[in-house]
């Protein structure tokens, strides 16, 4: 059956993230985006606004030496929502590695920019240990 345009849009956005093209990735977000990072680790919390969010992305790329990859297993989308199941992999400069499945929820503004994000990993303790 026919896919919603936002499925392709999410796929393209993740491709920009994986390539490390944060300028292109930024184009998908609303200025007032709120991004929730679950867990007890150093980077957990709510990032409010596009500048705070991209500071976080830059930091996440730095500590992983650009190795972080979000590989979609499934993307579903409608006009105002998208759900992603993804394999997330990366390594820290000190040798710690991450390889988990994540469920990600995105909501969009009326004009299609990412407004809100929250997510769940299959194994939160692994995520906490990786980012600490």
């Amino acid at each position: 059956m026919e896919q919603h345009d936002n499925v392709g849009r999410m796929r393209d956005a993740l491709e920009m993230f994986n390539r490390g093209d944060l300028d292109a990735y930024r184009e998908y977000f609303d200025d007032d985006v709120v991004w929730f990072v679950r867990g007890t680790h150093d980077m957990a919390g709510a990032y409010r606004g596009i500048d705070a969010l991209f500071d976080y992305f830059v930091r996440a790329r730095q500590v992983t030496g650009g190795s972080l990859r979000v590989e979609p297993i499934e993307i579903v989308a409608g006009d105002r929502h998208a759900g992603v199941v993804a394999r997330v992999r990366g390594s820290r400069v000190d040798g710690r590695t991450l390889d988990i499945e994540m469920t990600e929820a995105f909501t969009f503004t009326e004009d299609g920019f990412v407004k809100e994000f929250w997510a769940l990993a299959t194994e939160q303790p692994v995520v906490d240990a990786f980012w600490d």
Partner: protein
Amino acid sequence: MNPTHPNAIKLRDAIDAINRGSLDVGDAFAPDLVWRIVGNHPLAGDHRGLDSWRDLMRRRSQLTGGTYRPQPQAWLGSDRYVFCFLRLTAQRDDGREIDTSHVAVFRLGEDGLAHEFWDVSSDQQAEDAFWA
């Protein structure tokens, strides 16, 4: 938004029936269903099988005295996954309230039945405090 994928329609109808008080979901849920509630509270954990799932529904309903109200905003489906975006409101006897955004995810087997469910709240601390 109305669901378009047949799997999304099937699970929407099942959840609608549950929200009207039915616990008969044999044509949508597999007998070995695993219903995962994440968090750090008495309802959290992996509830395996339909009997265990029915117990969970009864406990949830007792704790919230009929105020448990999931308000679906979008049902999105594919051949293997169904995502429901929703707003949840509920109250406890002692006056505690919750109002959170969720995405509920069903993983389907090749038999077209839901074998796994998990729920991702945008605010896990609020969930833990509410259900504690």
